[in-house]
């Protein structure tokens, strides 16, 4: 991987961290608000189904996780197990894809 790409990965992780900081706060506040009178699927779906705002919010959230976690994982694998090069990059790219697919599928499930 070129040096420039490595720098962009670092920048992507920094930016996604900022997005996540915001998303996690909103998510936690919503969570506390949502469970006030007990938790029910109907109540949650009532809030999310057909909502463009929640769809956009959780899509951004999922994508930020799909960027942030694999870049961090790449550093952890490299530093802990001495992994380098192509196989490492393919592995974390696969993890990124998996997080994105599973996450977006979950978003779709509560929005559609």
């Amino acid at each position, binding site marked *: *991987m070129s*040096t*420039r790409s*490595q*720098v962009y990965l*670092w920048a992507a992780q920094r930016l996604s961290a900022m997005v996540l900081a915001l998303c996690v706060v909103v998510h936690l506040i919503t969570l506390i608000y949502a469970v006030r009178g007990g938790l029910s699927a109907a109540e949650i779906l009532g809030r999310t189904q057909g909502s463009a705002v929640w769809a956009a919010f959780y899509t951004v959230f999922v994508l930020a996780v799909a960027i942030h976690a694999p870049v961090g994982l790449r550093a952890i694998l*490299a*530093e802990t197990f001495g992994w380098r090069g192509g196989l490492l990059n393919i592995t974390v790219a696969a993890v990124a894809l998996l997080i994105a697919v599973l996450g977006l599928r979950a978003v779709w499930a509560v929005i559609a």
Partner: protein
Amino acid sequence: MSTLEVKVWRGGEEGEFQRFEVPRLESQTVLDVVTHIQRHLDPTLSYRFACRVGMCGSCAMVVNGRARWTCRTHVADVTDGDSLEIAPLKNLPVIKDLVTDMRDFFDKWAAAQGQFHPTTTRKDDFARVEPESPERQQVDAGIECIGCGVCYSSCDVVSWNPEYLGPAAMNRAWTLLNDVRDGANEERLAAVAGDAGCHACHTHMTCTERCPKQISPTAAIAGLKRAALKAALKGKL
């Protein structure tokens, strides 16, 4: 007179601590202790020192778990009781006893483009650098490094990634990056960016905490991260 129980690393990469009893003196430094052992108890003990006053950077060792200059460390400041453990610097191959092979450490200074690349010749007038200019201030903050290796020995990222350039080399690169007389900043940024360079720093700040000169390599590395990103966005990396 009380005595100090001193455990000193003997051997190379493989080896063990050897116990010595050294008379406890007032205002005694750790280097005094090592010197006493070599002069009076075991002349085969190997260690390095030169200036004894914190100028040359050759006497750094790991004392009670922390890398320090032994010549400027008073025994009283590092031990509660009467025991000391003295080991060679970490993250560098041990040659013998308290002497490490500093080659990797200095090779990385060179790899980080730690050489000055002049843009003028001796025929030109000398450069005028305003002492108050932001660049000069950045240089001032890091220029006093004497290359003792305390930061390199203390850095977790070096221990996890042997290719990592380390705090001292990047501190040097940062002072040159801010040297308005230097003409090799593109090459320098390319040399210090990425996985083996500044972007691998975890900002643990151990280097900054342990530096005997109160330099902050962490700040230098943060500066390099920003400069490298800017260069990348401009297509210059």
